[in-house]
C-alpha cells in the first residue's frame, strides 16, 4: 500500500502498466484505423490507381490522446486507488468498550458502524465489553476474530437501560484476574483500547477509565448526536408539562410527539428545549388516547414517557338475564354493538358482574329490581361506578326507583306517531355543555316514544330547578324540549338514563351511528373511576405486558423477561430482564420508565489516561469503481469512434436493426472491446459489504405452509418427527391444495411460533417438566390462534406412564378442558370423512377442547390443543402414496388411515370451523329435495 496524502494505492505494482503507455502511443500512432472492406468488381482497374494514391494514413492525434487517457484510467483502476486508506493496522489486541445504553441509541448506526470497522481493521484478537448489557458477572472476555467481532457489534442493539460502567469494570477486572488461566493468555496489558462512549458521565465512568488505562492507551469516541430524556411529566388540564434532560451532544430543540398505544403519532409539537421543561398543549379529547409522550427527532428509550392512561379501556358490564332469542329486537344486542368498540364488555347477570371490577354497568330496560340487586347496584354507584340505564316498557313498572336520575311518569309519551309528518321525535342539537357537544345529529334518527320525568311542583322538568332537580343534568333533548338523556351524580358515581329504548322499539336512533357515539361519550365519563398506576396493594407478581426497546419502540415482552414482585417495586430500576415498560398483575399496574425522574446526563469530563478522538477516521473509499466506470464509458465511445472511422457504424446499426426485427438470425457482432468491457464491469463490482445479520426464521416461500414441530432435544425422536412430518407434507402437497414448505424444528423458547398454523409435539420416552419459558411460549401461541398438536404416544405406554408423561409435558401450559373428539366434530370431516383416528396404533384416540369451552373461547371454535396418543408420526413417515381405492373407496392400510387423520388435523388447523357449517347440510338437502315435490 502506497499513500500520498489522502490517497492510497492498494497494488502499486499495477502502476507499472503506465510505463507501457509510450509504447502503446507509438503503436497507435503507427497503426492507421482499419480500412473498411468493399467488394468491387472493377478492382483490377484500381490496381493502377492505388499505387499513386495510397498515403500512409495515421490515426488522428486526438484519437491517440483519447486512447491514452482511457488506458491510463484503466491501469490506475487496476492499481486499486483508495481514498482515506486504512493506516497500518495495529498488531496489538483490541479491546472495544461499547456504551450500548439508550443514551447511544440516537447515534447507534454511526457508533456500531464505526466500532465494527475498527474491529474489522484489527490484526489481533478483539474483545468487546458492552456497558449496558453486561451483567458484570462474566468471568472471561471472549477473544474474537476481527470478522466475528464486527458481526457481533453490528448485531447488537442499544438496550433500554443506562450504561453501567461499574459492571463493565467488574467484567474487565474479572477477565484480567483469570487471564493467566486462559489458553490465549486472555486480557493482559498491552491492549489497544477504543471506547465508543455515549459522551455521558455515568456513575463509575471515572473508575472504568482508570481500569482501562492500566491495560493500554485508551481512545475515546463520543457520538455526534445525543439523546434527550423525558424525566417527568405533569398532567395539566390542557396538556402536559414535561421535564427534559438532554445529553451533551443533543440538538438545541426537540420535537415532542404524543403517541397512542399502537405507536402512532397523534399530535406533535416543535418546542425549544429549556432546562425547566416544555409544555405540550393537547385537547382533552386527544389526551384520552395518548399512551406515551416521546421526543420525536432523536429516538431513545429515555425519550419515551409512558403515561398512566395507557391502554385504559373502560371495563363495562352489560346486565342481562339470559341470551336473547331475537337479537335484532333486543335492547341488549344494540347496547352490545354500541359499546363493544370502546369498552371491555362483559355480559352477565348482575350478581356476577358486581363482583368483578367494572367501571360501568349498563342496565337495559328493567323494572323492579330484587332487593339484593338493588343493594348491589346502589353500592356500585355510590362507590364511584357509572350506571347507564335505558328506558322501555318495563321501566315504567317502577317509575320512582331511586336508581334513576329523577322519578318518572308512569307512562311513556308518544312524541311521534305513525301518522305524524312533522318534526316530532327529532333530536335537538346538543348544547355546548353537554357531553355530546359536537356530535352531528342525524336527521333521520327519530324517537317515537320516551319516558318522561314525573312533574314536580310545576310540571315541567327543565324550566325551573326544584328540589329534586338539583344535580339533575339534561344531556340531550328532543326538539320539543323533552329530555332524551338525563344524568345525576349519585354518591361518588353517576346514573345516566336514556329515555328511550336502546333497541328499535321506541326509536330509530339505534340504526344511526349517533347512538354509538353517544355511548362512547358517556363511557368517557367513567374513566375517572379507575385505579391509578404504580400503586401496588396485592401480592401477585406483575407480568410485563409491554416493554420498550433501546430506541423507545413498543415491544411485546420476550420470554426471558421476569415479572416484578410487589415487594420489590420500590426504587426498582430497569434491568435486562426487567426492561422499562408496563407491568400488570393482580389488578395493579406498574409503569417502569426508562429515564428515572432524577436522571441526569452530564457530559463526560476529562478522564485520566484517555485521549479523546472526537471525530472518527474518515471511511476508506475505493476509487477503482469510479476509474473503471469512466474507463468503461470511454471504451464505449472508442468503440463507436472506431466504427465511425472504419465507416462500419451504419453497417453495425443495420445489422443490429435487422437482428432486432428478427429478419436475420445472426449473432450480434462481438468485438474484443465488448468482451473487455464486460470483464471490466465484473471486476469493478463492489468487493466488500456487510451481510446484514438476519434474525428472521428459516425462510419459507411466502404463502407456503410449513409444518413445525417442537424439538425435544432427543435427536432420534426429532429425526423421527421430522421424517413423519415430511411424509405428511408430501401427502398434503399431493392430495390437497395446501402448498407445504419445508418441515421446521422449533425451540419454542427462542423461535417465533406465530409463523406456523400448527405445531406438532411428539413426546419422548421420558419427559421432564416443560421449562417455564417453553410453556409460556406455547401458551401464548395457543392463545393467539395457534393449534398445538401433542402426540403423547400414550397408546404405546401403560396408562400410568401415559398420564405421567402428559402431565409433565403440559406443566405450565394452560390447557383448555378436553374431551374425546365427539361425533360430527370438524376433525372427522375436515378433508376425509373419518369415524376413528388410527395412528400407528389402530385404536388411537384424539382429544380436543370441549364444545362448550371452544364456543366460549376467542379462537373461533377451533381447539387450540389437540391431544392424541396414536404415535402418528411413525405412520406418516411411511406416508403411502394414495392407494388404489377399493370399490367402496376405503383404504386398507393402517398407514393410509393415519395419513388421512394427519391431513384432517392440518386442514382443521388451517380452515378452522369452516367445515362445521356443513353440519346443517343434510337438513338443507332434505328441504331442497322436498320443496319441489310439494309444488302442485
Amino acid at each position, binding site marked *: 500500500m502506497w499513500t500520498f496524502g489522502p490517497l492510497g494505492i492498494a497494488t502499486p505494482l499495477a502502476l507499472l502498466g503506465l510505463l507501457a503507455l509510450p509504447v502503446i502511443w507509438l503503436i497507435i500512432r503507427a497503426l492507421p484505423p482499419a*480500412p473498411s*472492406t468493399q467488394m468491387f468488381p472493377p*478492382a483490377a*482497374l*484500381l*490496381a493502377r*490507381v492505388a499505387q499513386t494514391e495510397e498515403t500512409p494514413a495515421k490515426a488522428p492525434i486526438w484519437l491517440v490522446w483519447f486512447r491514452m487517457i482511457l488506458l491510463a484510467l484503466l491501469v490506475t483502476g487496476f492499481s486499486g486507488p483508495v481514498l482515506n486508506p486504512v493506516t497500518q493496522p495495529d498488531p496489538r489486541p483490541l479491546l472495544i468498550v461499547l456504551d450500548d445504553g439508550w443514551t447511544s441509541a440516537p447515534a447507534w448506526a454511526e457508533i456500531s458502524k464505526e466500532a465494527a470497522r475498527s474491529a474489522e481493521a484489527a490484526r489481533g484478537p478483539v474483545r468487546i465489553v458492552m456497558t449496558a448489557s453486561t451483567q458484570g458477572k462474566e468471568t472471561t472476555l471472549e477473544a474474537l476474530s476481527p470478522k466475528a467481532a464486527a458481526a457481533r457489534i453490528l448485531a447488537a442493539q442499544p438496550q433500554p437501560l443506562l450504561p453501567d460502567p461499574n459492571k463493565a469494570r467488574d467484567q474487565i477486572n474479572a477477565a484480567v484476574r483469570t487471564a493467566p488461566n486462559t489458553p490465549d493468555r486472555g486480557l493482559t496489558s498491552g491492549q489497544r483500547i477504543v471506547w465508543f462512549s455515549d459522551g455521558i458521565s455515568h456513575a463509575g465512568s471515572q473508575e472504568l477509565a482508570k481500569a482501562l488505562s492500566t491495560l493500554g492507551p485508551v481512545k475515546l469516541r463520543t457520538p455526534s448526536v445525543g439523546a434527550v430524556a423525558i424525566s417527568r411529566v405533569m398532567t395539566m388540564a390542557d396538556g402536559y408539562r414535561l421535564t427534559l434532560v438532554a445529553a451533551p451532544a443533543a440538538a438545541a430543540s426537540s420535537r415532542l410527539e404524543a403517541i397512542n398505544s399502537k405507536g402512532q403519532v397523534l399530535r406533535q409539537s416543535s418546542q425549544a428545549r429549556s432546562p425547566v421543561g416544555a409544555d405540550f398543549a393537547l385537547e382533552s379529547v386527544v389526551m384520552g388516547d395518548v399512551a406515551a409522550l416521546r421526543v420525536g427527532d432523536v429516538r431513545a428509550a429515555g425519550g419515551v414517557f409512558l403515561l398512566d392512561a395507557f391502554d385504559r379501556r373502560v371495563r363495562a358490564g352489560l346486565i342481562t338475564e339470559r341470551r336473547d332469542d331475537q337479537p335484532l329486537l333486543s335492547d341488549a344486542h344494540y347496547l352490545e354493538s354500541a359499546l363493544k368498540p370502546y369498552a371491555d364488555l362483559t355480559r352477565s347477570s348482575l350478581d356476577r358482574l358486581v363482583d368483578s371490577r367494572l367501571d360501568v354497568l349498563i342496565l337495559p330496560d328493567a323494572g323492579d329490581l330484587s332487593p339484593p340487586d338493588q343493594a348491589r347496584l346502589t353500592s356500585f354507584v355510590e362507590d364511584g361506578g357509572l350506571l347507564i340505564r335505558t328506558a322501555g316498557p318495563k321501566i315504567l313498572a317502577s317509575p320512582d326507583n331511586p336508581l334513576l336520575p329523577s322519578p318518572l311518569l308512569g307512562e311513556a309519551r308518544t312524541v311521534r306517531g305513525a301518522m305524524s309528518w312533522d318534526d316530532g321525535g327529532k333530536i335537538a342539537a346538543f348544547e355546548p355543555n353537554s357531553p355530546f357537544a359536537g356530535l352531528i345529529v342525524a336527521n333521520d334518527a327519530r324517537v317515537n316514544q320516551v319516558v318522561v320525568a314525573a312533574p314536580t311542583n310545576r310540571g315541567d322538568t327543565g324550566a325551573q330547578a326544584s328540589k329534586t332537580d338539583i344535580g339533575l343534568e339534561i344531556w340531550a333533548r328532543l326538539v320539543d324540549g323533552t329530555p332524551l338523556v338525563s344524568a345525576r351524580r349519585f354518591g361518588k358515581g353517576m346514573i345516566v338514563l336514556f329515555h328511550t329504548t336502546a333497541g328499535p322499539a321506541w326509536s330509530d336512533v339505534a340504526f344511526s351511528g349517533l347512538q354509538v357515539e353517544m355511548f362512547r361519550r358517556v363511557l368517557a365519563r367513567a374513566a375517572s373511576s379507575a385505579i391509578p398506576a404504580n400503586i401496588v396493594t396485592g401480592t401477585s407478581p406483575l407480568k410485563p405486558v409491554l416493554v420498550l426497546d433501546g430506541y423507545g419502540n413498543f415491544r411485546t415482552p420476550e420470554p426471558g423477561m421476569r415479572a416484578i414482585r410487589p415487594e420489590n417495586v420500590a426504587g426498582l430500576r430497569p434491568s435486562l430482564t426487567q426492561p422499562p415498560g408496563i407491568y400488570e398483575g393482580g389488578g395493579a399496574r406498574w409503569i417502569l420508565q426508562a429515564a428515572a425522574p432524577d436522571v441526569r446526563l452530564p457530559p463526560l469530563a476529562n478522564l485520566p489516561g484517555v485521549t479523546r478522538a472526537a471525530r472518527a477516521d474518515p471511511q476508506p473509499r475505493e476509487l477503482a469503481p469510479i476509474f473503471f466506470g469512466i474507463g468503461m464509458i470511454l471504451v464505449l465511445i472508442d468503440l463507436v469512434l472506431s466504427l465511425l472511422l472504419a465507416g462500419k457504424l451504419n453497417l453495425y446499426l443495420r445489422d443490429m436493426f435487422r437482428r432486432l426485427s428478427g429478419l436475420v438470425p445472426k449473432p450480434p457482432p462481438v468485438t474484443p472491446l465488448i468482451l473487455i468491457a464486460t470483464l471490466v464491469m465484473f471486476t469493478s463490482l463492489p468487493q466488500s459489504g456487510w451481510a446484514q445479520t438476519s434474525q428472521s426464521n428459516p425462510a419459507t416461500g411466502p404463502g407456503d405452509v410449513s409444518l413445525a414441530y417442537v424439538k425435544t432435544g432427543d435427536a432420534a425422536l426429532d429425526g423421527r418427527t421430522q421424517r413423519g412430518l415430511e411424509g405428511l407434507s408430501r401427502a398434503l402437497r399431493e392430495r390437497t391444495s395446501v402448498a407445504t414448505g419445508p418441515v421446521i424444528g422449533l425451540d419454542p423458547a427462542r423461535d417465533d411460533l406465530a409463523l406456523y398454523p400448527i405445531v406438532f409435539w411428539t413426546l419422548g420416552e421420558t419427559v421432564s417438566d416443560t421449562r417455564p419459558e417453553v410453556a409460556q411460549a406455547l401458551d401464548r401461541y395457543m392463545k393467539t390462534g395457534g393449534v398445538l398438536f401433542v402426540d403423547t404416544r400414550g397408546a404405546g405406554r401403560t396408562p400410568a406412564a401415559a398420564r405421567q408423561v402428559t402431565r409433565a409435558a403440559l406443566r405450565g401450559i394452560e390447557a383448555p378442558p378436553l374431551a374425546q373428539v365427539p361425533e360430527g366434530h370438524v376433525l372427522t370431516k375436515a378433508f376425509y370423512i373419518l369415524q376413528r383416528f388410527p395412528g400407528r396404533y389402530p385404536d388411537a384416540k384424539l382429544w380436543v377442547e370441549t364444545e362448550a369451552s371452544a364456543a366460549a373461547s376467542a379462537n373461533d371454535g377451533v381447539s387450540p390443543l389437540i391431544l392424541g396418543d396414536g404415535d402418528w408420526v411413525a405412520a406418516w413417515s411411511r406416508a403411502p402414496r394414495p392407494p388404489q381405492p377399493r370399490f367402496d373407496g376405503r383404504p386398507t392400510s393402517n398407514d393410509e388411515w393415519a395419513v388421512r387423520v394427519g391431513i384432517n388435523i392440518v386442514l382443521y388447523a388451517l380452515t378452522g370451523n369452516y367445515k362445521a357449517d356443513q353440519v346443517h347440510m343434510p337438513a338443507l338437502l332434505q328441504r331442497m329435495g322436498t320443496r319441489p315435490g310439494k309444488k302442485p
Partner: protein
Amino acid sequence: MVATQALSPADLAGAAQDLADGLPALLLEARKTQASLHPGAHGRRRAGMGETFWQHREWREGEDLRHIDWRRSARSDRLFVRDMERESPANLQIWVDCGPDMHWRHGANRPTKAERALIIALALAMAAKAGGERVSCLLGDARLGEAIGFGRALISSGQNFDLRARSGSARSAHILIVSDGLASIETWLDRLKPLSDQASGLTFILIRDPAEEAFPFEGRVLFQRPSGGEPILIGQAQAAREAYQRLYHHHVDALSAALRQLRGQLLIHATDQSALPVTFQALACLDGRLRAGQQSG
C-alpha cells in the same frame, strides 16, 4: 447483396443457384420487356426457299422446268413459276456472363448485374424465337425451347467463357454477349476473334452497376474483387475517384473499339435504368444484322 469477402466456389455455386431459383421472376420481367417490343411474328417478306406461297412470276430462260406451276400456266399463254417465301431460320447464339463479378450490386434497391443481364438476354431470345429464329447458347448445345430450361442453360454456360464447350457452328450466326466487360481487352479479343470470323454479327451488351462508373467510395477502403485476386487498399477513396473514372472510361472505349474491329457493336446498360431501351436497341441491331446476314446468305 453485400459481400465482404471474395466468393468461394461454393458461394459461387450458391449464387448461380440463387439466380436459377429466381428465374421465374426474371422470366416474367423478360416477358414484359419482350411484350413491350411487340415486333410480332414477321416473315422475311421476300421470296426464298420456303413452304409458304409467296408469288407467281414468269418463268425465265434456263430455270428448271420442274419449277413451273403448270396449273397456273394453263390459264394463260405464259409459263409461271410458283415462288415460295424464303424461310431462313437465322441463328442467334447467346452468352450471358454469370461469373462472380456479375453477382454484385451496390445498394440493395437494384438488381445484380447478372439478374439484369439474364432479363435482357431472355427477352431478346424470346423475341427472336417469336420471329422464327433459332436461339441457342453460344457455349453449349442448349436451344431455346422451354424458357426456364434455357435460362438455366444460360446460367450454367455463363460461369466461364470456354470455347471448347462450343458445339454449334458460328456460321451465319448472330452472337450476343451480355457481360460487364471487365475482363481485359486482350481477353475479349482472344475470346471473340475466333467467333467473329465466322459469325454474321456480334452484339455486346455491357451491363454495369452505376457504382462502377461513379465510384461513390470514401475514406480508407480495401477493395476486393468478387472473383478473387489481390485486394487493393486505397487510402483515400475520394481522391482516387477521378483517376478511376478515367481508367474505366478508357477501358469501355477500348472495348468498343475492339468490337468495331470485329464488326461488332457495343451497347451499354446501367442497372439503375429500365431494361427496355437497351433491349429494343439490341433487337433493332439483331434485326438489321439478321437481315444483312440473310442478304449475304
